[in-house]
């Protein structure tokens, strides 16, 4: 089924829908920099700003998948640079749990990713998004996508 949808009936290439959570202080700035620096990136990502990667609730990510996201990225300041001292460290612990949970649940490992992007790393932001999009294209649409959601 993944192949059928990937090519699509119209012949256009299937574009995944990716939800990306960015922290207010670094990664969201990174997204800005990527735009201002005019770094090419695929139009697959919907960015949701959170104050800190430590604010990420596992529920946000699970909800994104249930609503039909093909992949979820979440991103914050590099370790040591957290605006709230150790929020990103907390994020890593949550990520560990989530990753294990999502894997046990049977979603492909590629669909969830945590990465650090600082405000000045516009180019890196574009790279991360491009790379993740390619990754999701390979695994195809999410099996949790509800009927009627495109």
């Amino acid at each position, binding site marked *: 089924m993944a192949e059928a949808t990937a090519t699509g009936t119209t012949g256009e290439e299937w574009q995944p829908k990716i939800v990306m959570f960015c922290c207010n202080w670094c990664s969201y700035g990174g997204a800005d920099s990527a735009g201002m620096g005019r770094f090419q990136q695929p139009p697959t990502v919907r960015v949701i700003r959170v104050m800190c990667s430590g604010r990420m*609730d*596992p*529920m946000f990510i*699970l*909800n994104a998948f*249930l*609503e039909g996201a093909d992949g979820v990225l979440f991103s914050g300041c590099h370790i040591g640079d957290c605006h709230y*001292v*150790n929020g990103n*460290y*907390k994020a890593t*612990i*949550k990520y560990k*749990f*989530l990753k*294990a*949970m999502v894997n*046990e*649940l*049977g*979603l492909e490992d590629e669909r969830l990713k945590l990465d650090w992007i600082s405000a000045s790393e516009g180019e890196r932001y574009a790279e991360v998004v491009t790379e993740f999009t390619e990754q999701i294209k390979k695994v195809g649409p999410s*099996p*949790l*996508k*509800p*009927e*009627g959601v495109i």
Partner: protein
Amino acid sequence: MEIGDCYVGWATDEDIRTRGASGGLVTAMLAAALEKGLVEAVVVLKKLGEFEAVPVVTSDPEEVKAAAGSMHSVPIVLSRYLEYGTKVALPAKPCDARSTIEQAKRGQVDIDTTYIVGLNCGGTMHPAMTRKMLDVMYKLDPEDIEGEEIDKGKLIFETKDGEEHAIKIDELEEEGYGRRESCQYCFTNIPVMADIACGNWGVIGDLAGKGTFVEINTEKGIEILRNAIDSGAVEVTEADEKGKAIRAKVDGAMMKVAAAANEKYLAPIEGSHLDYYMNALKDCINCGACKTVCPVCACGEGAKCTEYSSAADTYKMSLFHLVRFVHLMDSCIGCGQCTDVCPADISLTHIYQRFARPMQDEFEYKPGMDMTTPPFFGVDLLEEGH
């Protein structure tokens, strides 16, 4: 008397001694705690039928003395029955004790005012299953049953005519009867996390069947036993090394059985995990009973899993279950309550354990064993010095 000491004890009151199991030490100790004002209330397991006992809170020592333990009792969710801070003593199987400790961590129970009197446990049975098993396997009328015991791997029912009927537990469980599934793969038989651990394993010689083996685990354990001795309700003698060794041996044998059950029930899923879980949960009727009975859930009415999940959602899996999976990865104690109450007969404990076991093994964290917080936050942050 010190932490780590082991004794064999019994009730001095003859009635309690003969009526209660193994010399009635636990009953006498709980009643004495109430009589001497050590606690305001005791949770007793009130027998409401041959195969069912429910936890009831009482301040009446007579009611404590009248209550007899039952192997069919369900895990106790203490915070459901008591207000925070009540001075209370409760008899607790290992899962009861672990659930009480988990609730204490979440501010539902005050551990300093709660005396946990642990009871050895080799597993419990569901009342409805017990009746069916008696009918199908033993060919007995459930109404004729007067007592039961486990001896040498056999489950023995005594009928009113005095006859004993024994079948090997292995054989029963092979046929889908016997202990609850979660009990079969449970590794905690001796309540080492309770204030005081009691049971009949390791009671030998003349005292066999007439005494209870007691291990003191905490200061509160010393307090409650001392209180009972001082008030003359119980007598104890020091346990000998041979008794201790036998107790450890029984525990070891049970562990082996549990390990085999783990292989059997929690073997890796073949094929798609997602299909497996979606199929397992497809008959969920959204009743919320699994959360209501869950001893490690402390969110109450405004819980994330229920507030953000609705029967109106058009999702392939319910957010309720997914949130609970994450939640239970570090805290599921495998008590089996959720499976027991599920109206769609979903093996929820089994599912939660599939998520929890690998994570708990990785962090070497066993919930409910002490007041250490779960690895989700506390442990790692402290260790890494953040």
